[in-house]
């Protein structure tokens, strides 16, 4: 139970940071960086899932 609370707190923290990233990069003068950032974040997420969560790994191959 304690672990679940910790996990949910961590997830909420990451969502707060993601929100802050998008808020920072959504201003007019920085918007051109947003597509690059989204691609990089998605690639990072994919890498994280493929190495960290075993049962997701087989599906990563099909993504390419």
């Amino acid at each position: 139970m304690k672990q679940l609370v910790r996990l949910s707190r961590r997830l909420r923290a990451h969502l707060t940071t993601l929100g802050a990233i998008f808020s920072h990069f959504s201003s007019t003068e920085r918007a051109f960086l947003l597509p690059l950032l989204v691609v990089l974040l998605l690639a990072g997420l994919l890498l994280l899932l493929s190495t960290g969560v075993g049962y997701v790994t087989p599906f990563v191959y099909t993504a390419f």
Partner: protein
Amino acid sequence: MTAVLGVSAYSHEAAAALVVDGVVVAAIAEERLSRVKNDASLPVRAMRACLALGEIAAGDLDEIVFFEDPFRKLEHVLVRAIGGFPRTGTLFARSLASQLGEKIWVLDALAAALEVPRGRVTFGSHHQSHAASAFFTSGEARAAILTVDGVGEDVCTAIWLGEGTSLRCLAEQRHPCSLGLLYAAFTAHAGFAINEGEQKLMGLAAYGTPRFRDELSRVAWLESGALVLDGDVFDHFRDPDRAFGPRFEARFGPARRANERLRVGEPGFARFADLAATIQAFTEDTMMAFAREAKARTGADVLCLAGGVALNAVANARLGAIFERVFVHPAAGDAGAALGAALFRCPPKQPQAAFSATLGRRADETTAWDLARALGLEVSRTDDAALAIARALEHGELVAVVDGRSEWGPRALGHRSLLAPAGPVSVRERLHRAVKEREPFRPFAPAAGASVAAARFDGVSPSLARFMTGVARARDPHDPALGAVVHVDGTARLQLVEDDASLLARVLALVPGGVVLNTSLNAAGEPLCESALDAIAFFQDRPIDALVIGDVIVRRPGAVS
């Protein structure tokens, strides 16, 4: 009560600092506790130590402030990667992996480490944190502030005005025109590690003449008080650990490998000494230009300095020609920005006259006693530690001193110090070769009280000498009382000991000549000793004669005191 914890991490010096109601309660660099030199990891040990010293639970903190803006930093990495493509190819992948893998989530990591709500974790900006660290510890109500760094987010140099509890940025110079990175390029070219070897280069400069000045002026110059660099010569884009490119080597000669010998009089020494003298002279001139600009913009009489370049004691000493008083924060590098971040959120209500740098942990004498006994060392107690140290120094001994709380910043100020007689040159050689194992061309520093300092040195700035952030010139460079502590150019990074009640001041009152050699209690590549355990490990490992921890004196078995 308002309690704020400032944190710096993922740069080159991680640290934490606790400020309660504008008063600095504790500040510790992570390297002191992890025992990893220049530890840049999340400073969990330092944060916990600060909270313990302040007797505050993490849950009672009002705010945890990270020293820089992680989102602006990511933006800078992206913009730099796109702007410098294809040169930035390899660096881009490495930088992004570290940014997206770890650094961008630093605020979440802080919240998780302290188990506090994420909403309580905020951030400042790099140069603002530096500026706050310098101004709010200077004791001044109004001052010009100069922050000169490698790069923080995308800013390299900034001029600020500090008034009361507010800071206002007046001018900024952005990457890549950075004095810190320029100095880093010469440091790496001379075979020293960046962020560690700059002090070595400064020491080496005293042996040379600035004969490469014309060459340097073609790749780095000043324009209306701002620095301009020829980007093709430097290689910050490709390799930040190297920082200089092939065109740099074509202009200034081949670089030195880190393991190549560099000894006075040997082949190659003169070229690197001249290069060091060239960049040192350029740095001093540039700092003077920055200071003149700060004076013109603020009209202030006092200058506060922070940022890595502010550790250049020789350059700092020249700034007294422009300002009535110059103050440099004792931890001018990125560690100090942790304290600045906290002070910016919770500034002192009134300027604090005497900022104390003793902000670390106290060494436990009981542990020292028990450990030394268990190791079969000779242990005794004294009711007058100052007298015992002074007598040992009179006999030419090297004495390690651990006194009270540890110092904040890279300089040992008598609380984690290795003391030695300041006169005999043989002492300096012994320290260089057997104890510290460092480059023999580097100088050692003297510590003296006000009257002795005035009698033996010229150009002593009390505000700089207090934390060893400036240099003074020996009146007689061949003074036999200063043989081990005066550099080859006649200067010394003097520590002015003003607190008469301190152990070091009492030692100075007892030693002949009133001056001692004071160097940091660590060997090459190690952080300063923090605890009794660290000090005893150092004593066991190095050929020093005595270790004094509070009132406990440790000697080797059979040694005659």
